[in-house]
């Protein structure tokens, strides 16, 4: 399980952030005191850090600069400072991403996920049961047939796959699609899901995407 360290001085935010991460299947650790932030980070040895800029004792940007002298852990700056100058500065200090508060929680999770994917350089082939899914080509295949998914169908299937056995809301799917510049509406999402289902049926997996009424979908 990936360890994510939250460096944030607002207690209410870090509590909710921690819950968000835990629900998404990460282990979250909260940094409680900021006096020896750098040493504490190294001790915790996280897989990723969510770092606020306005923290006590040391400015987040300075902390990042210090940290980069001894560690390459991915860092996402999370801040209410909505300025390009701060963003450029943070990135030049070695941040991997910069997110402005208030943010869409699903977007934050997508960004975290994409950083992990980038680091692990996961090859473009993932598997689901005996299906192999080629993300680059946009195909799913069992031993006999290969079926081509559209970009939208692939985004939806990939999201469901990443959250297998968890309920995924329509809103989350919509956010991922819009995040990939596919600005579709509610009806189109329904159509895409039913097409995806029938394509999955063709490769022998009927009813693996179940509808949970008024909540969303679940990939079994």
């Amino acid at each position, binding site marked *: 399980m990936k360890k994510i360290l939250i460096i944030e001085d*607002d207690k209410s935010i870090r509590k*909710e952030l921690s819950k968000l991460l835990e629900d998404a299947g990460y282990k979250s650790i909260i940094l409680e005191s900021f006096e020896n932030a750098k040493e504490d980070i190294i001790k915790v040895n996280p897989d990723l850090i969510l770092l606020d800029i*306005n923290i006590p004792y040391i400015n987040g940007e300075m902390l990042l600069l210090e940290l980069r002298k001894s560690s390459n852990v991915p860092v996402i700056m999370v801040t209410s400072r909505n300025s*390009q100058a701060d*963003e450029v500065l943070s990135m030049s200090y070695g941040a991997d991403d910069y997110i402005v*508060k208030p943010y869409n929680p699903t977007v934050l999770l997508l960004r975290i996920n994409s950083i992990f994917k980038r680091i692990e350089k996961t090859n473009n082939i993932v598997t689901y049961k005996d299906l192999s899914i080629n993300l680059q080509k946009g195909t799913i295949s069992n031993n006999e047939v290969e079926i081509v998914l559209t970009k939208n169908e692939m985004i939806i299937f990939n999201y469901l796959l990443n959250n297998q056995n968890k309920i995924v809301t329509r809103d989350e799917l*919509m956010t991922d699609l*819009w995040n990939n*510049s596919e*600005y579709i509406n509610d009806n189109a999402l329904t159509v895409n899901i039913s097409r995806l289902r029938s394509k999955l049926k063709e490769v022998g997996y009927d009813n693996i995407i179940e509808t949970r009424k008024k909540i969303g979908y679940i990939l079994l």
Partner: protein
Amino acid sequence: MKLSKYLKDKLLPISLFFVMYFIILLILFAFKVQTLLICYISIVIFTFNIIFLLISYFRKKSFYDNFLLNIKGLDKSYLVLETINKPKFYEGEILYDSLYEINKSMIENVKNYEFQMNDFREYIEMWIHEVKIPISSLILYAHNHKDIIDKNLVYQMKKIEDYVNQVLYYVRSENAEKDYLIKENKLDKIISDTLLKNKDYLLENNINLIVDNVNYSVLTDSKWIEFILNQIINNSIKYKKNNTDSYIKITAEDLNNKTILIIEDNGIGIPLSDISKVFNKSFTGTNGRIRSKSTGMGLFIAKNLCNKLGHKIYIKSKENEYTKVYITFSKDNYYEVLK
């Protein structure tokens, strides 16, 4: 400085001189002085008086002409004192010294306001960062407790955030300081971030989005332009037509020296009589009065920000048919060379 006007100004001393000359003549005639001597005396008196007049005229003329020319030439005429030498005649000295004192007191006064403005601006910026923390917290809370929290709450939070941002950018746009950073930004990323932020609002209003041909890089500040785009899209949603399939179409045109971003909608449009005023401060127009309450600040701030960033923004519209907003980003050749 004109000689005729100068002489007119000296009318009193000149007429006194003629009175004096007339008296001298009378005296000379009374003492039966020779006519030739009278002529000589007259010539001397006239020559020296004319020389005196001309010298004092040209001394003043050279100072005042230079002074007036510099005032005209400067776009900040209060700096004129820096461009002239202290004059060598008495009245000029008085003028020069007074202007110096007046300038000083004005600068102190302006500085005072600047400090106050800066303090205020800093406070507003700080306050906005502060208020965004509880907003973030509430959005996270709502996300984590979807089962008990109505989606409307998130939507209301987004509205609060938009209003808060409007204040932030109003302060930024009114401020003389340069607090933006221009660099190359991907247009499609800017558009996607803005649309993602408005996703729920757009979906709820059943607005179809057509985003096409926007894979260009533009020189801008991404945060500022996102705010501008957000204002425009919010207007499109606010002024959509009921009972039709509404759409917002975002496209770009890449020309030799500029890139034009076009945001088009098929909303209620803007009446011809209003179109020239939409960027005015506090202008709400017919639409703003009929539809939901409008502050008339959104486009005003957008225009101000565009001016600062060096972008052009303009609107074409036909009532009941469409509204098209154009934003042009110029390309910097110097920047191309650096790459």
